[in-house]
């Protein structure tokens, strides 16, 4: 497991230029969203949580798809499987690496959000927690579906098509929790949403780990 994780992190480090590009994409998306609303400061602030997560979601399709590019180029993934390597281990290493990458992206987009939408918050630890759990929810099914679609021709359209309906609960919960953290949460409503996120993560991290072997083996 450590071996697999090391390799994933090394690969990500080598291709870190791409992460930079995706960050710019995410920031541009956040900017574009604001044009959809107009220069209405309070409206922007109200919807800032939604914009952040939409931006992250769109960016995630790029990073998730990219994470399998290296594996498919020279059939490296098959090579690992034949060593032999346990598919479940490979899954969790990849999912964790994607999760970390998305978290970095999310955290990097927070200042963009703060600046563009005047959406600051004093509850930073909670916000970071929401980002961590939300990106975990994106990464688990995302890694599985990215593995599937990487082997197909229409990979770019299929990945969002399959992923988006699935992560609706995670998206809802993340947006709600983030908005509450930014706009104020007098009744402590953020907590149940965070619990929902946690439940989603636990369910999908286990389920996808179980199913991954069937997806990548012939």
């Amino acid at each position: 497991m450590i071996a697999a994780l090391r390799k994933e992190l090394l690969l990500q480090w080598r291709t870190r230029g791409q992460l930079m590009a995706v960050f710019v994409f995410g920031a541009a998306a956040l900017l574009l969203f604001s044009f959809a609303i107009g220069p209405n400061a309070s409206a922007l602030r109200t919807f800032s949580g939604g914009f952040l997560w939409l931006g992250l979601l769109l960016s995630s399709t790029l990073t998730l798809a990219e994470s399998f590019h290296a594996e498919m180029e020279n059939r490296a993934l098959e090579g690992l499987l034949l060593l032999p390597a346990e598919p479940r281990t490979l899954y969790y290493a990849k999912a964790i690496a994607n999760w970390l990458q998305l978290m970095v992206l999310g955290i990097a987009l927070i200042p963009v959000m703060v600046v563009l939408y005047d959406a600051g918050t004093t509850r930073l630890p909670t916000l970071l927690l929401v980002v961590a759990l939300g990106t975990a929810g994106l990464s688990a099914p995302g890694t599985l579906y990215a593995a599937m679609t990487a082997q197909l021709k229409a990979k770019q359209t299929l990945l969002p098509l399959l992923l988006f309906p699935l992560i609706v609960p995670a998206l809802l919960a993340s947006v709600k929790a983030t908005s509450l953290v930014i706009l104020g949460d007098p009744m402590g409503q953020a907590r149940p949403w965070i619990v929902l996120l946690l439940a989603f993560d636990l369910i999908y991290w286990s389920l996808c780990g179980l199913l991954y072997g069937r997806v990548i083996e012939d």
Partner: protein
Amino acid sequence: MSEVAIDAQQLARRYGRRWALAGVTFRLPAGTATMLVGSNGAGKTTLLRVLATAIHPDRGSVTVGGFDVVRHREDVRKLTALLAHQNYLYESLTARENLEVVADHLRISRERVMPLLQKVGLAARANDAMSTFSAGMRKRLSFARVLLQQPGVVLLDEPYGALDPPGFDLVDGVVAELKASGATIVMATHQWERSAAMCDRAIVLEGGAVIFEGSAAEWNAGVPPAGPAASRAAAPRGETPPSQPAGRRRSGEP
């Protein structure tokens, strides 16, 4: 490992409606080197991939080292190493890192990496990204990857491809060494003369079926310059559809 290294019975594998392997049966004793010969599309790569458990057979069965490739897949994987057309390497990693990834996964010491790189002649480029490598260099690196696994059964898919003459010698040397260590080797190749000198046995595939199985010397002696296609032309007239084996010349079976 049992006496018979590879035992294939009526092996069949399809891609869509085309049967790439259409009832392949053969037995290879342990410790032998076998050359796998056939024209392009005859099924050599498919056969090697089934033996390596990269793909599963649709019909029939095969055991490698006594382990069934479907039921004991992991055991077969521990035993075998495949040198494939795709080199199983990461473009953005260096030669050394690529091998270290393999070493880590196999839980063997990273110390083994540099000597192997030296052996395949890539020591000078150990720290260069694989994306800068030529086709021949990638082949050498794939070889190092195979050797790192210390396999009991070695499956080589066109090992001489893309290599220069010194590379050919390297392959010869490596194969000889593997033989000496007792490994069983199956080598798909178009370099007939060269391989016949090194291999004990030969299997000829055509249209997904075995049309010859015997000693390499015997096959080499009987092969006309043009290869198996010409020898088929010399056989009885009439179209044989690809899915029917023309019969095994060696053992006179129905």
